[in-house]
């Protein structure tokens, strides 16, 4: 009986299994996987208006309530700098700053953020005038394909604010002392941003330098 069930599980399923459980790695979502057994809710799509302030500009949108903040940015406002990696909180590609704090835009609904202030990668710098964190990423070659980069940069900025506010992390030896900016602290605090290209060591260098210049 054991083996019977084992055979039914394909390799892809096992990968998904490990992604949602003990090791949350970034993998494609299980799109539509649950539709067959789900109870039928007859309700028709519901539209709702929401006002968001994104990179200093106010947008009023009429959205299906199901629209995630990530899809609102990418599909409705064409702010495609924010990336969709996993759509399940497992990769950090969708990281944006909500009222200054870093969050995963894929795991929140747009309608939940009436009046909120959002900063995306588009709001940080321009090609001619890079934000110091962006400049440090370029200087230290902190990416290869660049897909995780907008999320890494937004996350790094949110992370540095948390560190300066004195928030401890899993690797802080003394919970009550002000945390210091070490490579270990950066690695732990940035663990919510995966990079499939493995640019990790250069990411640490870029963030360390930008932190020094008070990005």
């Amino acid at each position, binding site marked *: 009986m054991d083996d019977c069930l084992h055979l039914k599980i394909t390799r892809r399923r*096992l990968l*998904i299994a490990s992604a949602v459980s*003990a090791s949350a790695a970034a993998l494609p979502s299980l799109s539509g996987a649950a539709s067959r057994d789900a109870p039928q809710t007859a309700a028709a799509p519901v539209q709702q208006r929401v006002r968001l302030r994104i990179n200093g500009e106010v947008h009023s949108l009429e959205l299906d309530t199901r629209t995630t903040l990530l899809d609102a940015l990418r599909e409705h406002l064409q702010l495609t700098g924010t990336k969709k990696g996993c759509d399940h909180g497992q990769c950090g590609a969708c990281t944006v700053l909500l009222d200054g704090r870093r969050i995963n835009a894929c795991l*929140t609904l747009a309608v939940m953020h009436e009046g909120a202030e959002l900063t995306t990668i588009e709001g940080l710098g321009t090609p001619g005038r890079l934000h110091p964190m962006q400049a440090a990423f370029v200087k230290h070659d902190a990416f290869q394909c660049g897909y995780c980069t907008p999320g890494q940069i937004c996350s790094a900025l949110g992370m540095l604010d948390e560190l300066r506010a004195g928030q401890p992390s899993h690797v802080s030896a003394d919970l009550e002392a002000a945390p210091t900016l070490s490579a270990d602290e950066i690695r732990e605090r940035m663990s919510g941003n995966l990079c499939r290209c493995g640019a990790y060591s250069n990411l640490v260098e870029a963030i360390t330098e930008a932190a020094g210049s008070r990005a």
Partner: protein
Amino acid sequence: MKPFTYERAGSPQAAVASAAAHPGARFIAGGTNLLDLMKLEIETPAHLIDVNGLGLDQIEGTADGGLRIGALVRNSDLAADARVRRDYALLARALLSGASGQLRNRATTAGNLLQRTRCPYFYDSDLPCNKRLPGSGCAALGGYSRQHAILGVSEACIAAHPSDMAVALRALDAVVETLRPDGSTRSLALADFHRLPGETPQVEHALEPGELIVAVTLPPPPGGRHVYRKVRDRASYAFALVAVAVIVQPDGRGRVALGGVAPKPWRLEAAEAELPRGASAVATALLAEARTTRENAYKTLLVERTLAAALAEARS
């Protein structure tokens, strides 16, 4: 995702009244677990009640010297609170070992307690799962069960509760405060909050439909040395295979709670009496009723060794 109507509740009373008026409604806090499951149509609420604006985001001292943590306090704010870092280090450590910086900025006290299992079959509607579809069977029993529970399990379900925070709260004797749709309030010891699967693994906690968590209270600080040790497949951003929470007093007495091994944070006060005899005696008492599968049998040894390491650290 199934369509749903959405409302922002203005007060706890309004939130429970709305829940009573909308059968099948769910509260949404951080959304980091609920939306994940709604995308997969494992959760299909017809109405969402946003509880972020209820003013339940404060951490306050209590008259007896304890702490009252609002249901909507974000996990990152709770871990950074000076009183928590000083007096309830176990809680700060457990929170900081969970999820990622981004997720902790949204995840809330109540949502964390109510997050659902990460059993892979619960997520996969092509395979049987008694928790997702009662009566369909349990694919994990004969399947991929490396992460699953070894204590408190049943023939119907061997899923583990994934929360780190709940393990610390169990060791700290936390109490969950709620508001019911009829306006009455009640207090539930965390020990009685989560349910064992038995024959009804879909019933995971003691809350009634529409009952709102408003706060979690902690008794006065327990003192002693606090250690939360989490073993996982990578150094960060992964759920526990085994987690051990210990509080050790100068006289050698203490408390022990386990995560990653049961459908709820696991604590046996009787096993704590074995602390003077060492980790192996405590582990033997804790694991006396363990029921393992071929794939998760390693957890018994891992519990014993992690406990030994945690106790050594607490006594160092």
